[in-house]
């Protein structure tokens, strides 16, 4: 077996048994990355030397009997996580060359547990996008392609497109992502892998470049649900450096993957049946519910009446928070500076931000600035916060009668570069099934469950109660077992 074909859990076992060394495992992934990244552009920065030296240190730690739970496991890190001494760009020109002098809490916990970092994965600029095409470092190619049109380059989804592509193409055993409106779940679905956005507060946001602070959450990508569960356990936990991080114990999520779903009540929200959803996605959704019924779960119709207001609410709240968070990029303390010889401070700010931010980021900052400006705050921002409360209440009421909710992950399979590009709102609609979990702060998992007629992966989403990722993993793993998804992308290591 080629070392890039391991699951993460399988690699942990092989390392423990001594069947492979961390250095061999990392070398195989570094080779895959160096061979495939020029085609896929999944990484903005690759750090093969650092990875190999970390792997050797891992082997030494294991020899001393000090192996951590992720000892020697090679991962891709979304380039939104600050990594000490390694360039962190957020996919933006404004942060080109920025070398963080500190490590994000999530990545420091992964390192503490022995993980090896291969490099920094590509993403939409400041995580704003659903295609990875807003990255200042170029788009990412989805390793999957259409059966009847194999030469059309498909997007991996976004914003964590590089993370998803790296894992799908077997350049990494897992990856970190962040999810503000669907940025883990949508690319996971587009690339045929699993990914979870945990409950808001489960993972520390310290050291993650901020987009919309009340919506941003970190989470893992991997090729199996269990592998996501293993990674999340290392990433999660209370951090005094993030005041919104939750001070509660982190369960053994992997164990929850083996739990039976017998007797669980699974909600099916009628508002998620949308006009224009491809019949294949409707069919897969019904199939998923049948699988859970066969496994002993009870399927219950529920209503989430404010669903249709979720995206417009998001497109007030997220840009408002972004306009505030991105005010720090001023060309003074770090990052790009653009000025003319006679520029005053204000001109320096304006030129720097015009040159440093891409079109989508500038657009969202301006929307956010407008909805927060004097005279419009109540009509837009306060109104959106109230509708957000109603969306959250819908879920609270639904969860009084069900243990988890199952929906499609995305309204389509991966689309081609250039599609959905003419109108920003068309692109925003990609997150129609995922954005509600961010607004309500709930955990959501995407699981690959089938293929469309073109041979492209389609995913299902499991949404759970706050801090009940365990039930989400149990339901996700049951779907995964029933689906037996074993299709592979055309572009992958070892192919």
């Amino acid at each position, binding site marked *: 077996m080629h070392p890039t074909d391991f699951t993460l859990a399988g690699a942990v076992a092989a390392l423990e048994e001594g069947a492979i060394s961390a250095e061999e495992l990392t070398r195989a992934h570094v080779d895959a990355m160096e061979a495939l990244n020029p085609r896929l552009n999944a990484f903005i920065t690759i750090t093969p030397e650092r990875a190999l030296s970390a792997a050797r240190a891992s082997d030494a730690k294991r020899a001393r009997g000090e192996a951590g739970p992720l000892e020697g496991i090679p991962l891709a890190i979304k380039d939104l996580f600050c990594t000490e001494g390694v360039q962190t760009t957020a996919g933006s020109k404004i942060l080109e060359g920025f070398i963080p*002098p*500190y490590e994000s809490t999530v990545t420091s916990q992964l390192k503490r547990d022995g993980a090896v970092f291969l490099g920094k994965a590509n993403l939409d600029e400041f995580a704003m996008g659903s295609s990875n095409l807003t990255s200042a470092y170029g788009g990412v190619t989805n390793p999957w392609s259409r059966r009847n049109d194999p030469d059309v380059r498909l997007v991996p989804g976004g914003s964590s497109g590089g993370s998803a592509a790296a894992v799908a193409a077997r350049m990494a055993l897992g990856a970190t992502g962040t999810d503000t409106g669907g940025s883990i779940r949508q690319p996971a679905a587009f690339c045929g892998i699993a990914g979870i956005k945990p409950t808001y*507060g489960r993972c520390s946001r310290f050291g993650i470049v901020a987009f919309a*602070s*009340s*919506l*941003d959450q970190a989470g893992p990508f991997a090729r199996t649900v269990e592998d996501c569960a293993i990674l999340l356990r290392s990433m999660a936990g209370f951090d005094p450096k993030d*005041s*919104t991080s*939750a001070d509660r114990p982190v369960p053994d999520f992997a164990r929850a993957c083996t739990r039976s779903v017998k007797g669980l009540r699974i909600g099916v929200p009628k508002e998620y049946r949308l006009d224009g959803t491809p019949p294949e996605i409707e069919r897969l959704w019904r199939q998923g519910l049948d699988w859970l019924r066969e496994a002993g779960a009870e399927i219950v119709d529920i209503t989430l009446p404010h669903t249709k*207001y979720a995206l*417009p609410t998001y*497109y007030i709240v997220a840009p408002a928070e972004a*306009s505030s968070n991105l*005010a720090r990029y001023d*060309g*003074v*303390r*770090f*990052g790009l*500076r653009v*000025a003319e010889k006679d520029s*005053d*401070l*204000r*001109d320096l*700010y*304006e*030129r720097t*931000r*015009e040159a440093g*931010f891409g079109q989508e980021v*500038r*657009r969202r*900052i*301006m*929307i956010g*600035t*407008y909805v927060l*400006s004097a005279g419009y705050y109540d*009509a*837009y921002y306060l*109104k*959106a*916060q*109230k*509708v957000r*409360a*109603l969306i*959250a209440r819908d*879920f*609270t009421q639904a969860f009084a009668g069900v243990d988890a909710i199952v929906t499609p992950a995305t309204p389509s399979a991966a689309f081609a570069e250039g599609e959905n590009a003419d109108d*920003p*709102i068309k692109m925003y609609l990609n997150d129609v099934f995922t954005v509600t979990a*961010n607004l*309500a*702060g*709930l955990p959501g998992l995407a699981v690959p469950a089938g293929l469309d007629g073109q041979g492209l992966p389609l995913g299902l989403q499991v949404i759970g109660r*706050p*801090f009940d990722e365990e039930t989400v993993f149990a339901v996700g793993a049951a779907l995964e077992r029933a689906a037996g998804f074993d299709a592979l992308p055309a572009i992958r290591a070892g192919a």
Partner: protein
Amino acid sequence: MSLDTATVRRVAALARIRLPEDEVARVQGELNGILGWIEQLQAVNTDGVEPMAGGTPEGIAAMPLREDVVTDGGQAAKVLANAPDREGEYFGVPKVVE
């Protein structure tokens, strides 16, 4: 509500983003498209609804308080390491006082 070109220029100025004159019309069209779309929220009855201010899910305890004490500091070199311009232990900026 539709933004006129003067408002578009004002918003860009508030956001400290330079907006060349030949881009005003395009940006105006994009912003109005998005604002027109989010206008549908006005149809929702939110009388008596408390706004949700953060991301913490319903029914979960809010943020904890901690002692108001210094926990960090004394790292001028690290703070300045990425500065595009510096003089000694200060960030360098264009002259702001004549």
